[in-house]
């Protein structure tokens, strides 16, 4: 059983995330402030709410250092939904607040390419060989649950390892660089495919 840290930055469905972590046989630990917690093997950066609000909350609670330190120790981090978006450079949702800049790219409103927004529901997600290999996933594609209004317009092909298709456009939804992973979908809400994804992530060393 591993200790999985969950960054509490603004509104998110923490109970769902914690229950999903328990389902994988691991122990969730909520991180509400910068008090040092030992023995956290994996970090989850959830996020419901807006790009700027989540980033401001992380800074306000002085959790930024914790996140950077975790990465420096080469421990795995997973950003979910808005937690995925803030790993990039910026978003037009809040142009004044820069992202964490781990991945190259910027987010813009889905309205520009899609009539019905937010994109709410299940999407077939095509996984790249790289992510299947790294996480040892048992599937090449899977249906995951999405609820978002922004997408990465610019991105680096090297960092993106998963796509969905919206309005006949390939939308990047999984990013990876060393020990940092981000997913636009909600693995904790994606049935057993999502639980499988999380448990594969928790096996990452």
């Amino acid at each position: 059983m591993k200790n999985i840290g969950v960054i509490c930055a603004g509104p998110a469905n923490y109970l769902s995330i914690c229950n999903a972590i328990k389902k994988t046989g691991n122990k969730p630990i909520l991180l509400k402030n910068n008090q040092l917690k030992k023995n956290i093997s994996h970090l989850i950066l959830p996020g419901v709410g807006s790009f700027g609000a989540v980033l401001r909350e992380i800074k306000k609670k002085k959790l930024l250092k914790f996140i950077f330190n975790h990465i420096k120790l080469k421990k795995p981090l997973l950003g979910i939904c808005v937690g995925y978006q803030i790993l990039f450079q910026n978003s037009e949702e809040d142009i004044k607040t820069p992202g964490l800049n781990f991945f190259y790219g910027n987010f813009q409103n889905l309205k520009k390419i899609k009539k019905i927004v937010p994109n709410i529901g299940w999407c077939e997600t095509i996984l790249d060989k790289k992510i299947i290999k790294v996480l040892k996933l048992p599937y090449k594609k899977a249906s995951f649950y999405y609820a978002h209004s922004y997408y990465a317009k610019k991105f680096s092909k090297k960092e993106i390892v998963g796509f969905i298709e919206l309005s006949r456009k390939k939308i990047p939804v999984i990013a990876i660089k060393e020990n940092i992973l981000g997913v636009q979908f909600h693995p904790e809400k994606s049935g057993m495919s999502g639980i499988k994804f999380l448990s594969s992530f928790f096996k990452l060393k």
Partner: protein
Amino acid sequence: MKRIIAKLDVKSGFVIKGIEFEGVRKVGDPMKMAKKYFNENIDEIIYLDCVASLYNRNHIVDLLSKVSEEVFIPISAGGGIRTFNDAKKLFDNGADKIVINTGAVKNPKIVKEISDYYGSQAVVLQLDCKKLDKNKWEVYTDYGRERTGIDAIDWLKKISKYGVGEILATVIDNDGKKDGLDIDFFKNLKDVTDLPIIASGGIGNHSHIEQIFKIGGIDAVSISSIFHYNNYTANVLKLRLKKKGFVFRSL
């Protein structure tokens, strides 16, 4: 991808179901039914505390936290949300989205307050209405008990500006009868909004779902009776609809 959602109306600890929201009968245990539907591959669950508005309370908080331990798909919850804190309580206990009707009609600003904090994707507007005339439907609140005099289409246009992420729309006249949805209503609705619509009220078989998906622009349905009375499972409905070319999540 299309979505099939199970809606469980809850009253004093039981799932209930009526016809046109009246003559309700107890049909089962809300926890057991959600687990069963999850195992049969439903795409989402909606819980509505249907007397909460009447008594200013909400009884599904305890239920939610238990369900979220075992059901790993989106769970929406509503009934009796009057304040930001009512919504917060549901989110804190495992709701991924909240569903609001009466509270929004009484004070539309509450919708903005909730969506500013949780994001509009977490706010579902419940639109219960009855047909008045050709192309005219009136909004009802308090689980179909109260008329509002508000035109459904006008209301949707207005409330969308306050930050709604989805519309759960039910035509009360059709509800519980298993005779099919009020297709005209949904055609009107989809022409005035770009928000995702969940069509509800009257689904009795897979052809009724096919009918609504075929008009285009509506990708989700909410079902109660035919699941509660064991006429169909989500798996069976999806199997039949897949043969018609509709796509659902893979497992």
